């Protein structure tokens, strides 16, 4: 997990307000407000974010309260505690992570045949047989629901071996 973050927010530092940039950020302290980044945000175990987050890639090991959108992926590690909605084409919830909110990986309908097989395969060594889109698929018949919070937790459960 090599980190080439140019921006580091140390453990005792609080940054409040609007933050923008085009580089990776390693967070050990706190962020409040909003963060828009062309780059990866890593939230360390002891770090806390109370903000709307828009990034390329998000790794959460600490606390995140707020909605997060990633153009690439979102990964919640075992120590993560997250309250908010997550939107990304690829979302990983690892065992131990605590999460409340919605998960949106896009509409399976839009890319019906092509996308689902292609998506879950790479970078998912833990649970290749249970791709995350599944819970969404089970609720599909009921019109076009956004996955309910309960689904998100099913998602987390599904990761257990």
């Amino acid at each position, binding site marked *: 997990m090599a980190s080439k973050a140019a921006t580091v927010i140390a453990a005792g530092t609080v940054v409040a307000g609007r933050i*923008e940039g085009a580089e990776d950020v390693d967070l050990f302290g706190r962020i409040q407000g909003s963060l828009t980044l062309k780059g990866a945000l890593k939230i360390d175990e002891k770090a806390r974010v109370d903000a709307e987050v828009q990034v390329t890639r998000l790794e959460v090991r600490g606390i995140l309260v707020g909605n997060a959108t990633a153009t690439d992926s979102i990964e919640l590690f075992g120590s993560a505690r997250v309250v908010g909605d997550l939107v990304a084409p690829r979302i990983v919830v690892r065992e131990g992570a605590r999460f409340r909110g919605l998960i949106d990986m896009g509409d399976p309908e839009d890319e019906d045949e092509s996308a689902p097989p292609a998506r879950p395969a790479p970078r998912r060594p833990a649970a290749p047989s249970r791709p995350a889109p599944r819970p969404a698929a089970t609720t599909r018949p009921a019109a076009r629901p956004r996955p309910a919070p309960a689904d998100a937790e099913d998602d987390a459960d599904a990761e257990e071996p």
Partner: protein
Amino acid sequence: MASTVIGSSMTVDGEISGAESLVVQGQVKGRIGISENLYVENSATVEADIEAASVEVGGEVTGNVTASTRVEIKAEGRMVGDVRSPRILIADGALFKGSIDMDVER
């Protein structure tokens, strides 16, 4: 140990506070209040009122600065604002506009 770094592509509009030193390479607007040293590097632009133990200005600073130990404006530094600090250094080549108050007992 580790200090906070605001990288050169970053823009922070708000407040930065903390107990570690802070290195600014990008842009900060608003307020900075830290109990350690602040380094404003060449590439940086800071438009903020600043409170820190010490402040080193190599970039551009607009705002009032209060430092408990010292303020240094380096040769490449450009600064507009009032400075309160017991020790102040202004290097040859530095640009500064504002008042200086070294009579700070705190």
